[in-house]
């Protein structure tokens, strides 16, 4: 009976972890992905990225990342998270030197890295097989 209770507890633990991952972590990454997507849209067609709006949005993206980084590391590969972190940190530097190409390239990398997580860890038939 003790063993049975332990197994039931393990089942609940696994279900809880999966639910937490699929809901919370996806939300965090979606948030980062959406912010980067918005930035991609805003910067389309403009060459000067040294505007207050872009700066504010990059700051917001950075703070969102910093808020959720620790939790994300529980579930996602640390190397992928580090890559994402580096790209987010680079954005600020690109604004200072007005490097439009590097800035947009960085945003694309952030967008795709967050999307990658869904591709790899999301619950789908393709991922199972």
């Amino acid at each position, binding site marked *: 009976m003790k*063993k049975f209770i*332990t*197994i039931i507890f*393990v*089942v609940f*633990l*696994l279900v809880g*972890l999966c639910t937490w991952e699929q809901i919370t972590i996806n939300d965090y990454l979606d948030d980062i992905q959406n912010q980067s997507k918005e930035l991609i849209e805003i910067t389309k067609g403009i060459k000067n990225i040294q505007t207050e709006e872009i700066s504010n949005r990059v700051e917001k993206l950075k703070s969102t990342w910093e808020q959720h980084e620790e939790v994300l*590391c*529980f*579930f*996602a*590969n*640390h*190397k992928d998270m580090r890559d994402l972190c580096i790209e987010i940190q680079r954005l600020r530097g690109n604004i200072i030197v007005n490097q439009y190409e590097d800035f947009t390239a960085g945003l694309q990398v952030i967008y795709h890295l967050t999307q990658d997580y869904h591709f790899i860890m999301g619950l789908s038939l393709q991922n199972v097989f």
Partner: protein
Amino acid sequence: MSTLIIRSIIIYFLVLVVFRLMGKRQLGQMQPFELVLTLILADIATIPMTEISTPILHGIVPLLTLLVVHYTITLLSRFSTKFSDMISGKPVIVINQDGVDYKAVKKLNLSIDDITESLRGAGYFSFDEVLFAIMETNGKMSVLPRAQNSPLVKEDMKIKSEENSLPVTIVSEGKILKENFNQVKVSKEKIMKYIKNLGISIKNILIFTLDNNGLIYLQEKYKKGKTINSNLKG
């Protein structure tokens, strides 16, 4: 580096818990699916232990999942013979009164050499000696010898003997095993008084066992062991 140490400790204890929950079967007693599970578990455990970039959860979750799956299979096997047969297979009679059942041997993907080897392992060197041989699901062979090759037992000789009793360890390496006192039918005080009367200090005793027939095995540290027929009968 300290992360590696902490991760190793966590995984070690987790694997320990998983194996404890899986049961106490030894390697040779494992069903095929249990052996496969053990190998997979060992492999899963090493990845998060050494790959620092992999979250430890990527090791913990598969370990726990396999534990749940294993428990479910074991539970289902207990309730359904059909399911058990499907997972573990059935014992197969490979030698019967007519000799080796070659059809069964081929079905098991075995050779006659394998059968001979298993027979030798069971203590029989000639097919003549065997009436039935069964290949168990864990790969071991159980043998029923012919009557003339069966080992002689006391009953055959009409010899009456006292029923065997399990020797219980009372003192081991100078330490009294209190939890074992309830396994013997003699009171703790009586046993301790007996040891005291022997004039031996507890800390000098290497091993002291007692069965319900009053048979004691006593060995002091760095001395020869002796068997004593005592009055400590249950």
